[in-house]
């Protein structure tokens, strides 16, 4: 049964609102898990949301040499991420414009956001901004092949690269999820997502050490409301990627029909699933030290080989 347009519109709006809240909450949750694992109490889970509110009430400040790129980049980041969130199947398999939610479209919408952030980093002409932008682009370029090949592996199995159909076909073939091709693609995607969201073995989100920071260096010139927008964009991206991983590898609970009850269930299950993914990632973070920048190609090349392996096993076992 295909739900009505009104239902899809509501579901899409719910998705956007949910990810705006969920992304920062997930970051707070991961910080909490890390703190507890290290024997500290840690900040409350909604601390990132409070930080955003604080930043939004501050005045706008721009560097003297900044051009028009600096104020525009946060809007591009936020717009691209929101479009990706709106068309992805997060709480329902029938979002508005779901037919255009090809997985490659999502990948490149997120890439648009990264390019905007890198341009903003270069804009003010400071050393750290340029360094951060160059590092972020290097990691992005290394993660891209692994991501795309892993996506190919997933779409070989489903016979489509449209995200809502991929998730629906997985729901009707539950034995796919435990197949070797899916598992390899999962490991490859987790490596890529850790790199793309700047989590610990790749980037340390809680430090401002000049030698190691990547994302923090890139956004060093931002302050006040614009910093809030950039940070919100980054956390929405994290929320979106975690939800996609959860839904691609464990799609049960997502709303497939047009009922309100299904939608509520979809929201609850999505929150639970992403919290589980966040818990897993923060356990990885607790156990690992940041890799040297020059060792990162090794990690991401490993992800690439695993995704090639996923494609080949997908072809072999088809």
């Amino acid at each position, binding site marked *: 049964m295909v739900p009505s347009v009104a239902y899809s519109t509501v579901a899409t709006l719910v998705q956007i609102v949910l990810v705006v809240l969920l992304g920062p909450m997930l970051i707070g949750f991961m910080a909490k898990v890390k703190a507890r694992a290290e024997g500290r109490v840690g900040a409350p889970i909604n601390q990132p949301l409070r930080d955003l509110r604080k930043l939004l009430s501050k005045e706008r400040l721009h560097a003297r040499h900044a051009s028009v790129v600096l104020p525009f980049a946060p809007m591009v980041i936020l717009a691209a991420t929101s479009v990706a969130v709106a068309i992805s199947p997060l709480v329902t398999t029938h979002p508005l414009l779901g037919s255009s939610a090809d997985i490659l479209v999502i990948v490149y919408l997120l890439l648009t956001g990264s390019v905007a952030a890198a341009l903003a980093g270069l804009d003010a002409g400071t050393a750290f901004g340029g360094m951060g932008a160059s590092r972020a682009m290097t990691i992005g370029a290394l993660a891209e092949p692994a991501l795309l090949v892993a996506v190919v592996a997933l779409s070989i199995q489903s016979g489509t690269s449209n995200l809502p159909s991929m998730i629906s076909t997985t729901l009707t073939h539950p034995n796919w999820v435990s197949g070797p091709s899916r598992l390899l693609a999962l490991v490859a995607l987790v490596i890529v997502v850790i790199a793309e969201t700047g989590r610990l073995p790749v980037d340390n989100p809680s430090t401002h050490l000049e030698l190691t920071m990547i994302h923090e260096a890139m956004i060093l010139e931002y302050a006040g409301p614009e910093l809030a927008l950039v940070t919100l964009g980054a956390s929405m991206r994290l929320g979106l990627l975690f939800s996609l991983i959860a839904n691609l590898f464990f799609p049960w609970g997502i709303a497939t029909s047009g009922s309100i009850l299904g939608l509520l269930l979809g929201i609850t299950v999505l929150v639970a699933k992403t919290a589980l993914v966040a818990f897993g990632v923060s356990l990885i973070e607790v156990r690992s030290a940041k890799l040297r920048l020059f060792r990162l*190609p090794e990690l991401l090349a490993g992800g690439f080989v*695993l995704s090639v392996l996923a494609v080949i096993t997908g072809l072999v076992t088809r």
Partner: protein
Amino acid sequence: MSTTYVGALELASGAVLVSAIMTLWRRQVRSIVTMLSLQGIALAGVAVVLATHEHDKALLATGLLVLVVKGFVVPGLLRRVSQLDPNSRESAPLVNVPASLVFAAVLIVLSYVVSSRVTSFAPTVATHLTPIGIATVLVGYFMLVTRRRAVSKIVGLILVDNGIALVTFLLTSGVPLIVELGSSLDVLLVVVVLQFLVVNMGRHLRTNELAEMKALHD
């Protein structure tokens, strides 16, 4: 044909190749040996799954033999060698780690392209998985050629042997028990001889990088 059989066979043969890739990925000799042990266990898993599916007692015995020799005895011996040099790591392979991982991806694609022609003659679930065995053999040769440490070279040799064993299991449902017994003991013997070689090299030359051996000593 049950889906559990297909799933278990795919998972076990996939694990053989993944652990082969992991030996290229890790640098620490200790964790390379752990991966080798996992590979031996996965290989035994392939044999046991095939044996239970075809009710073949000899193959089951072969699987148990593989589990003991390749899963525990050979890695145990290698672990003892690596304990002599606790900080031993593959510090400077001839081809660096990212490049060798990408090369491994090329080898996997190559083995798929080559063996898909062969497997189309007898398309069963098991023969479809042959590319995985051939890829393991190629990764093993690659490791033999590009790594400098003597222990890594032994690991490469065992990877080649495991790959050949996987191909024979998948294509012929296992060779006779006596042949497998012979080849497993051969590998064990080779490992023991190489272990003596490594230990003696370490004692006499204070290195176990083969490239640094330039002359023969009495």
